[in-house]
C-alpha cells in the first residue's frame, strides 16, 4: 500500500486499473471511455494505464462507451467506464441494457447538473434519474471512499447472487477535483480481494441469443430475478465489508451512515458530501442541547428502507436535504425517505445546493432552525445558499 495525493477522479481510475489487472488471470479487462467535465481526468488517467490483458477504447460517445463495456462484459471480461451529467443522459439506453443483461459492469459517475443552463457543478439529479435502471448505486463522501467503493463494486457486482452493474457516485469538483491523501492498495492485495470474473451467461461458441425477443412471461421472470438480486445486495455487501476489512485493514462504510443518531429526535438526511456539513451542524447544535443527528444514505439502490425506518423510529422531525429536483414532485431523496419516517413525524424537504451552490454550515443551520420551528411539514422548500 502507498499513500498518494489523489483527486477522486484519479482515485477512481487507479482503483479501476487495479481491478482490471486483477482479472489478467481471467478474461481480461476493458471498456469504452468518453470525456465530459468533471469526469475527464478519470478517463484520461485510465488511458495512461498499461494492461497486460486489457484495452481501453476511446469511443465517439457515451452511448458507445457503455455499449463497448457491454461487449467486454458479455464476453466475460471485467468492464469499467465513467461519465457524468449529459453524458449519462446520452448513455441511458445502454445503461438499462447493461442491467437487464445482468452484466457486472462498474461505472464511476460524477454528479453534475444537467443543462440547460450549462452548469458543470455538483447536483445529484443525473444519477438519481438512473435509480430505476437496475444498477446498484453507491454515493461517496470522500476520495478514499471513492477508491474503496470502486474495488467493492466489482466484488459486489460479480457475486453470483448479485450479477448487477454498480454505479459509484461522487460530487463534482467537491471530490472529483479535490486532492487528498489516499491509500492505494498494492496489486497483490487487490488480486486477493477480487477473484477472476466467471460470468455464467457469457457469450461463448454455443448457439444462443442473449437479449432475444420475448413475451410477457419471459420478461416478468428475469425482472423478478433482478428484484431478488437487489434484495440480496445488503447481505452480500455485509460479507464484502468483512472481506474488505480483512484484506485492506480498513472498514468500508455501511449502506446507511448514521451520525449521533442514538438518542436523536431530529434527523437531517442527505447523500454525498452534504453529509459532512450536516455533521458539523449536528455537533454545534448538540453543544446547545438539541437532540439532532445526521443520516447519510450511501446505498441508494437497493434502497435501504428498513435500516432507515429503524434509525428514524424515535424521530419526530426529519429534514431531507436534496441536491436535486424532480419538478412536479420535489426532492427525489425526500420522496423515497418519506415512507421510512415514523407516522405523525414532520418530514420536510429542503432543495439545496442545486447547480453546485456551496452548502455551508450556516445554510444547514438555517434548515435545522426551520425544521425545529415547524408545526407541520409543507411543500419542498428552496433554500438559498452562499
Amino acid at each position, binding site marked *: 500500500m502507498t499513500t498518494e495525493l489523489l483527486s477522486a477522479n484519479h482515485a477512481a481510475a487507479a482503483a479501476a486499473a487495479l481491478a482490471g489487472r486483477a482479472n489478467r488471470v481471467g*478474461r481480461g479487462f476493458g471498456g469504452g471511455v468518453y470525456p465530459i467535465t468533471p469526469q475527464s481526468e478519470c478517463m484520461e488517467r485510465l488511458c495512461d494505464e498499461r494492461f497486460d490483458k486489457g484495452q481501453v477504447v*476511446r469511443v465517439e460517445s457515451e*452511448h458507445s462507451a457503455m455499449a463497448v463495456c457491454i461487449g467486454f462484459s458479455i464476453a466475460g471480461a471485467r468492464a469499467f467506464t465513467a461519465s457524468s451529467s449529459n453524458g449519462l443522459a446520452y448513455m441511458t439506453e445502454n445503461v438499462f441494457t447493461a442491467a437487464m443483461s445482468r452484466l457486472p459492469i462498474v461505472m464511476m459517475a460524477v454528479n453534475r447538473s444537467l443543462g440547460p443552463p450549462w452548469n458543470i457543478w455538483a447536483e445529484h439529479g443525473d444519477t438519481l434519474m438512473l435509480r430505476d435502471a437496475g444498477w446498484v448505486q453507491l454515493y461517496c463522501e470522500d476520495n478514499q471512499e471513492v477508491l474503496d467503493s470502486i474495488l467493492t463494486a466489482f466484488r459486489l457486482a460479480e457475486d453470483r447472487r448479485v450479477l448487477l452493474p454498480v454505479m459509484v457516485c461522487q460530487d463534482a469538483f467537491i471530490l472529483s477535483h479535490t486532492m487528498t491523501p489516499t491509500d492505494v492498495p498494492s496489486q497483490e492485495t487487490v488480486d486477493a480481494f477480487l477473484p477472476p470474473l466467471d460470468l455464467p451467461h457469457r457469450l461463448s461458441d454455443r448457439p*444462443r441469443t*442473449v437479449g432475444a425477443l*420475448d413475451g410477457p412471461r419471459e420478461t416478468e421472470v428475469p425482472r423478478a430475478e433482478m428484484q431478488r438480486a437487489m434484495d440480496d445486495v445488503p447481505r452480500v455487501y455485509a460479507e464484502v465489508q468483512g472481506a474488505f476489512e480483512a484484506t485492506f485493514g480498513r472498514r468500508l462504510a455501511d449502506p446507511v451512515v448514521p451520525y449521533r443518531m442514538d438518542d436523536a429526535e431530529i434527523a437531517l438526511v442527505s447523500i454525498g458530501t452534504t453529509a459532512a456539513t450536516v455533521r458539523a451542524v449536528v455537533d454545534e447544535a448538540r453543544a446547545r442541547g438539541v437532540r439532532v443527528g445526521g443520516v447519510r444514505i450511501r446505498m441508494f439502490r437497493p434502497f435501504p428502507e428498513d435500516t432507515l425506518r429503524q434509525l428514524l423510529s424515535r424521530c419526530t422531525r426529519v429534514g431531507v436535504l436534496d441536491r436535486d429536483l424532480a419538478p412536479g414532485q420535489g426532492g427525489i431523496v425526500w420522496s423515497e425517505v418519506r415512507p421510512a419516517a415514523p407516522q405523525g413525524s414532520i418530514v420536510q424537504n429542503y432543495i439545496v445546493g442545486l447547480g453546485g451552490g456551496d452548502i455551508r454550515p450556516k445554510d444547514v443551520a438555517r434548515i435545522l432552525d426551520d425544521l425545529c420551528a415547524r408545526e407541520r411539514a409543507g411543500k419542498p422548500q428552496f433554500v438559498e445558499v452562499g
Partner: protein
Amino acid sequence: MSANEPILGGMAQTAADRSTPLLRPGNSNCGGCGMSVGLQFLSRAIAGTPVQLVIPACCAAVAAGPFPTSGYGAPVFSSTFASAAAVATGLAHVARLNGEKTRVVCFVGDGGTYDIGMATVSAAAERDEDLLYVCYDNEIYGNTGGQRSSATPRGATTTTTPRGSELEKKDILAIMAAHRVPYVASISLAHPDDALRKLRFALDAKGFRFVHMLAPCPTGWKSEPADSIELIRLAVRSGLYAVYEVFEGSRVVINVEPEHSDAALERYLGMQGRFRKSGVELASVRAGVERSWRELRARSALGGPG
C-alpha cells in the same frame, strides 16, 4: 441472361456447409426475404469458423425468435439499435486478448447503419476494429412497419413517404471507403460465386471490413416473394446496384459490369408496388444511376497501386 449472371443451382446445402445453418429453418422472416438469402450466403462463407454475431434492433433480431429458442445457429448478442459496432468492439477485443479465433460479425439493417448507428459504425471503422460489418439494406425500417430511412431511394413510397421519397439514397460504400478501412464491398444476391468469394475474404481479413447487400423485402417493396433474386439481377444489370470492392479505401475493383439497360430498370421499377404507386419516372432514376457510375468510374480510375 448475360454471361456474368450465374444460375443459383450452386446454393443447395452441401457437405461443405455448417452442420447448423446460420439462420435455422422455421424462423419468422417473410417469404422471399432477401436478408434470409444473405444469411444463407454468410452461413456458407463462415462454414466452420467460430463466430459471434451482434444484431441490433431490426428484422434480423426478430428472426432470432423468442427465448429459449434461437433462430440462429451461432451465439448472438442482440444490441440496442445504434450499438452493434460498439458491442462488437468489446467482443472482438476480448477474443483477441484471449487468443481466440472467434470472428465477430455485425449483421445490421440500413436503419442501424445509415441512420441511428452511423456515428458508431464510423467510429469503429476509424479505430479499425477487427470485425466484419454486414449491412443488409432493404431500403426501409422493416421492423417498425416500413418507414423511410436514408437508404430509401428516390421515388419509393414508404409509410412515411406516401407519395414517394424525393431524396437521393446515401452512398454508404463511398462513406465507408472514405474511412480507408481494409475492405469495403457490395455483394449481389444474384451473383453467389462473387458474393461468397468476397464474404470469405472479408471474414478472414484483419481490421474493419464492411459488406453491403441490397436485400429485397417483398413486404415493404410490394413485390412478389418469388421475384426477389430476379429483382437483384435487374438492379445489377440496369446499373442501379453497383457490385464492387474497395481495398484500403483506394483500390476500386468493379466485379460485375452492368449493361445500363433501361429495359431492366423499367422492369425493376415495374415489379415493385412501392415505385408503381409513386409513378416515379425512369428518366429521373436513370439520371441518379449515371451520376453514381460517373463517380465510381472516376474513383476506380484514380485507383491505387495494384
